[in-house]
């Protein structure tokens, strides 16, 4: 048996170069899904192999990494991925959104506004926004090439006809810089407006589907809608039971089997900050690369 030795951040440098080339192309063509030769990673597909590969490719020794899942730093998969990078790259990690230079996320965009020189890496299960309307890749690539997005508008229209609302609550499709329709990954649509004109670089990695796409800083991102049915942000009408926030996205927690429930911020860092429990980040400004 050969003793295994792993490179900084697990992937070998050739693989990182290949991924970086895909990222550069993705940044150059915002919202376009760039195929890349995704590798087998030591966690299962669906656990964030795309995000992990993108993070591994952009991470440097001086970076400060934050990993969240469902908005929280303490969810099992976030803990697992953070440990992976501590082990394989030895980088400093943080839970503080403002201190992080790279944030890998599953299903949320932090409540704290992102800054220039931060990178937000999304884990993407199905990168193709048209996939559930047309399962065949050969067809959907043609549709993107021709900017033939009529089918998506018909779907949204049918939702309104059936339910009186657009019935998409997460992975709500957006149009990037007036050209490509893009899947924002399964973030609740509450987070969609945060993608628009965002100072941070947003990278999307889909490992199993072998696609990378990007929203460069300060890019125009519009959620699809109709003039008479404008896009609406959904948020449970209530306040966080822990910090009292009336503007954060809330998780519902079932407290007993008699209908008891409470609502708490999904973004744990934001919530702790509001409760004054956060350890003040040391040299937060220095940690952000420039």
């Amino acid at each position, binding site marked *: 048996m050969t003793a295994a030795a792993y490179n900084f951040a697990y992937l070998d440098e050739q693989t990182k170069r290949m991924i970086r080339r895909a990222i550069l192309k993705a940044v150059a063509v915002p919202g376009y899904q760039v195929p890349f030769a995704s590798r087998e*990673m030591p966690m299962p597909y669906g*656990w964030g192999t795309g995000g992990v590969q993108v993070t591994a490719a952009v991470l440097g020794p001086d970076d400060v990494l934050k990993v969240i899942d469902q908005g929280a730093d303490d969810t*099992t998969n976030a803990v*697992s991925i953070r440990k992976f990078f501590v082990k394989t790259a030895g980088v400093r990690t943080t839970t503080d959104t403002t201190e992080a230079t790279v944030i890998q996320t599953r299903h949320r965009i932090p409540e704290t506004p992102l800054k220039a020189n931060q990178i937000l890496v999304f884990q993407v299960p*199905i990168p193709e926004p048209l*996939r559930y309307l*047309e*399962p065949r890749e050969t067809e959907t690539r043609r549709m993107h090439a021709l900017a033939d997005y009529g089918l998506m508008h018909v779907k949204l229209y049918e939702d309104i006809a059936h339910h009186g609302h657009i019935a998409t609550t997460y992975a709500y499709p957006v149009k990037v810089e007036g050209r490509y329709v893009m899947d924002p990954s399964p973030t609740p649509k509450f987070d969609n407006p945060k993608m628009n004109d965002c100072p941070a670089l947003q990278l999307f990695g889909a490992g199993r589907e072998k696609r990378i796409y990007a929203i460069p800083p300060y890019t125009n991102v519009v959620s699809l809608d109709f003039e008479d049915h404008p896009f609406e942000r959904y948020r449970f009408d209530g306040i966080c039971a822990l910090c009292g926030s009336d503007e954060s996205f809330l998780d519902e927690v*079932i407290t007993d*089997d008699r209908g008891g429930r409470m609502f708490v911020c999904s973004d744990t860092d934001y919530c702790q900050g509001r409760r004054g429990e956060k350890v003040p980040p040391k040299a937060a400004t220095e940690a952000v690369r420039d």
Partner: protein
Amino acid sequence: MYVAAKGGERAIENAHRLLAQERRGDPAVPELTLEQIESQLTLAVDRVMNEGSLYDRELAALAIKQARGDLIEAIFLLRAFRATLPRFGASEPIDTSAMAVRRRISAAFKDLPGGQILGPTFDYTHRLLEPQGTEAQDEPAQAEAATASMPRVTDLLGSDDLVEQSPPDTGETPGDLTHDPLGFPADRDLRLQNLARGDEGFLLALGYSTQRGYGRNHPFAGEIRMGDLEVEFAPPELGFAVPLGRITVSECQMINQFRGTATEAPRFTRGYGLAFGHCERKVMSMALVDRALRARELDEEVKAPAQDEEFVLSHSDNVQATGFVEHLKLPHYVDFQAELGLVRKLREEFAASEPVKEAAE
């Protein structure tokens, strides 16, 4: 000089001896014991019991050993044995809400009564080969056995009418496709039985296809639980139920796409998976496919393979599938001879007509 191939009997005998030798491997290496298989290859044992439709860990271990680790072959061995067993009755339905839970997770709620219990899972391991890492290390942390009430997520949501109720008990005896041939359309009892016996890989691929748009049904893993349950049997002469033994089962309650009609408020629909042992991949795939197969009942367009009941149920059984695929190894000399004759004849006719074609051009 030509000698016709004979001596099939001796060839078979020799093949069996060779097989036994291959199975044993290097005689210098100690032979595997059934206890080792039963206690260290537990998930293989679980899979064989499931698809073999027989809860017996020791026999499953024997089948795995005899089959040289080929699980479909082991399943086949167990099925063939099962078919010889007399049947003295059916157990009482098991109640999974009364399970002694060893693992319980919900992907729908961050926290819920009874909590999230990871249990023995690969989920958050990093897949790095660790030659020394398969030895048991420190004693695992021992939590108090989960005695707290652990209501099923579907029951919690059901009390608000947010998710469809379990179908009422009609008192009808569920069908049994090991006793009656499968007919179409098949009801959910038979479909679930078929899926429970079905090949894990086949169901996995079908479930995966629904996630990629071929019959999508927006799944959330409402709850996955694994643990132990008492099986009870009520002999008619006794009139009350007595315990038969304990089994381990895994259950998946998938919560899917909501649906409403002009007369019914929107609510989530469900897919269900249940299997012997610790078989999470199996029960999750099963729940996805169960939900896909409810397309007809829920007025959805049937357009993807996973929604096509006849397609799915007819091809899910790996003992049947492996038999028919592999039977192509058997002699087909006479059929092939007949085909050969026809092709030769057609070619002769083709050759005869060729000059005519050329002339016409």
